[in-house]
């Protein structure tokens, strides 16, 4: 009884709202929502859906926090770097509202798990950042019969819609196929203004609440574009295409990509020593054979600069990797190239092995 009173007090500002009331609050509390991605769009979606009291919220996320996330992913802190987003997000959302059940799906969405994960929720919110995942989410929502709240951003613009809702249009009804070449469009090397995903994510949370409670007019059969530079909001009517509503199975491959572009980071030789002691670091020495003979670190993998790209398969692209040379110049070039190749956590050892010899190991031979 006391619990009940407390519940209603938390949501008092909604339940006293004309047209909302305790009966709509109960619909929120009975609903389950899956949020795919806890990044720029996912953070505001998760914050507001949690605050408003959705019964169960699932999060699909497998990334760690990078410093470049922090200009827009306001749920994380500077101290969170390299920590898994999903654990951080779940813990903070529970602090905001312990009444919400938070489910952690600590994985990327794949053709192998999409139907099972999505099938367990009432509404899906797509906060992913690449075309592969977006088409996978769309198809899985069609197959499992789930409404899909779509939001996507580019530079200063956003797109919003509600797909596959009560027989309405799907993502493929406006964009039948993904771009062939991801080079130009996929991911977000282009950059994004920090507050843009805040705006679009809040609209996604709002559409989600509208679907669950039946208030207002969700963006069914509509695509809304928002230009935040000029505050231009246009709504386009779209039409369901029957074939797109009848997808029976997933495609074999959605060409998913991992999208946050991590810049090359730096390690001092002191930091390198510490990380090597902790043991969670690949160390790549890119000097020539004769330099390696003079001196090297025992933990290092040795691949001379000219051979790195052809032998990159020897390295793990998802684990931290430090690149070392004589003074830190060649290793910078190699590190940059590995980042571009998709290595996710790459460090240049500043000052190279010469700095190591001077500052860490005075027994090491210099040259």
């Amino acid at each position: 009884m006391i619990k009940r009173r407390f519940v209603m007090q938390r949501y008092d500002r909604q339940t006293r709202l004309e047209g909302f009331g305790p009966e709509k609050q109960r619909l929120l509390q009975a609903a389950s929502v899956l949020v795919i991605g806890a990044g720029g769009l996912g953070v505001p979606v998760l914050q507001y859906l949690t605050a408003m009291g959705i019964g169960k919220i699932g999060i699909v996320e497998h990334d760690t926090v990078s410093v470049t996330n922090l200009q827009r992913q306001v749920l994380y802190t500077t101290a969170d770097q390299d920590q898994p987003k999903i654990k951080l997000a779940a813990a903070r959302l529970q602090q905001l509202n312990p009444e919400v059940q938070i489910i952690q799906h600590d994985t990327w969405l794949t053709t192998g798990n999409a139907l099972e994960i999505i099938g367990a929720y009432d509404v899906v919110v797509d906060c992913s950042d690449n075309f592969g995942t977006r088409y996978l989410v769309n198809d899985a929502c069609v197959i499992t019969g789930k409404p899909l709240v779509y939001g996507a951003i580019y530079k200063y613009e956003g797109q919003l819609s509600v797909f596959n809702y009560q027989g309405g249009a799907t993502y493929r009804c406006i964009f039948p196929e993904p771009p062939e070449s991801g080079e130009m469009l996929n991911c977000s090397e282009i950059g994004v203004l920090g507050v843009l995903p805040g705006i679009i994510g809040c609209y996604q949370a709002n559409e989600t609440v509208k679907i669950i409670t039946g208030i207002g007019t969700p963006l069914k059969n509509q695509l809304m574009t928002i230009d935040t530079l000029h505050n231009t909001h246009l709504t386009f009517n779209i039409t369901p295409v029957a074939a797109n509503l009848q997808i029976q199975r997933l495609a074999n491959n959605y060409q998913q990509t991992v999208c946050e572009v991590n810049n090359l980071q730096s390690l001092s030789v002191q930091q390198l020593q510490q990380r090597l002691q902790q043991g969670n670091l690949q160390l790549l020495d890119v000097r020539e054979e004769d330099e390696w003979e003079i001196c090297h670190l025992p933990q290092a993998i040795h691949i001379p600069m000219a051979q790195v790209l052809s032998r990159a398969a020897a390295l793990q692209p998802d684990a931290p990797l430090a690149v070392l040379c004589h003074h830190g110049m060649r290793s910078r070039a190699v590190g940059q190239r590995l980042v571009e190749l998709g290595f996710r956590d790459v460090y240049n050892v500043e000052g190279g092995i010469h700095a190591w010899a001077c500052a860490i190991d005075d027994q090491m031979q210099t040259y």
Partner: protein
Amino acid sequence: MGLLFFGVAKDIAGAAKIDFPETVTRVAELKQWLYERYPAIQQLNSLMIAVNREYAADEQIIHLEDEVAVIPPVSGG
């Protein structure tokens, strides 16, 4: 009323709005015109054309006074 560009199409065209090409009378022709004038747009594969705020299929006729929007997919999140 002109041709409005969104997303990466705006970058490729180098403008948010241009005059509607007078020779074009159908959506399919407009796409062809865009691909020739801005070859990079072909990479988009899917491109939504809206006439007067309505999704327009290839066969739809366009009038000079229509507002035509060129909307590519965007993936950022």
